[in-house]
């Protein structure tokens, strides 16, 4: 479990949403540019890291109960995407880190995965 504020600090994030939403907590982390996979493998309450900056990212997050989104590789959402996220109450952050680096940093901080088909314990062995 991590506060979004901690996520934002760890990844030196730009915040595209209301700063108050940084008090939200995320339980898991998942990362994909494929929304099909987010729908298939994520869990409610997760933080999504993605390089896909479209309306569909927000719709998918709302449907799959994703708590917040971090756009990686310096991708920036346009106003339409930010407005849709505001309507759906999904905080948006952006980082310059690559997907690989951003995941590594958050994993090190203890944010557990959700999209794994391998039991979490086995990944540490």
């Amino acid at each position: 479990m991590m506060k979004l504020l901690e996520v934002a600090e760890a990844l030196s994030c730009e915040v595209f949403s209301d700063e108050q939403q940084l008090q939200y907590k995320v339980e898991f982390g998942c990362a994909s540019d494929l929304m099909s996979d987010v729908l298939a493998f994520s869990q409610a309450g997760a933080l999504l890291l993605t390089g896909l900056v479209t309306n569909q990212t927000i719709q998918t997050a709302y449907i799959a109960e994703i708590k917040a989104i971090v756009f990686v590789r310096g991708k920036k959402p346009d106003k339409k995407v930010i407005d849709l996220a505001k309507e759906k109450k999904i905080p948006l952050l952006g980082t310059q880190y690559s997907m690989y680096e951003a995941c590594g940093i958050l994993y090190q901080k203890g944010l557990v995965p959700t999209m794994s088909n391998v039991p979490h314990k086995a990944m540490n062995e």
Partner: protein
Amino acid sequence: MNKAFSQSFKIHGSDMYNAGKASTEIKTILKQLGINSTTIRRVAIAAYEAEMNVVMYAKQAIMIFEITPEQIHITVDDEGPGIPDVHLAMQEGFSTATPEMREMGFGAGMGLPNIKKNSDSMKVESIVGKGTKLEIKININ
């Protein structure tokens, strides 16, 4: 069976801007009705996958959402190319998506298998050149 509530939505093919609106509306209705969150997530995911399939492949469709005290039914009846081999389309990873669909983050061949995973019963009937009818039932726990 007592019909408690029913609503229909029109879905337009290729309309990426509005894609997902019907499913998000269904999700909002279920939240207002106080349905448990696990069931809501299953219904929303199944409906959204079905809606995206229409937007990506079909010309148009009618999505009918019905809720009874025991079950949620979603029927999507589309006018489109149809599915030549439903059994093949049900396999994870099988996809006929175009590069444009993949750029939107879809078309990974997970749609129909994921609808099946999130529903208690699923029926697909398709006629090539005419369209596909999808019926999903999800029990309310």
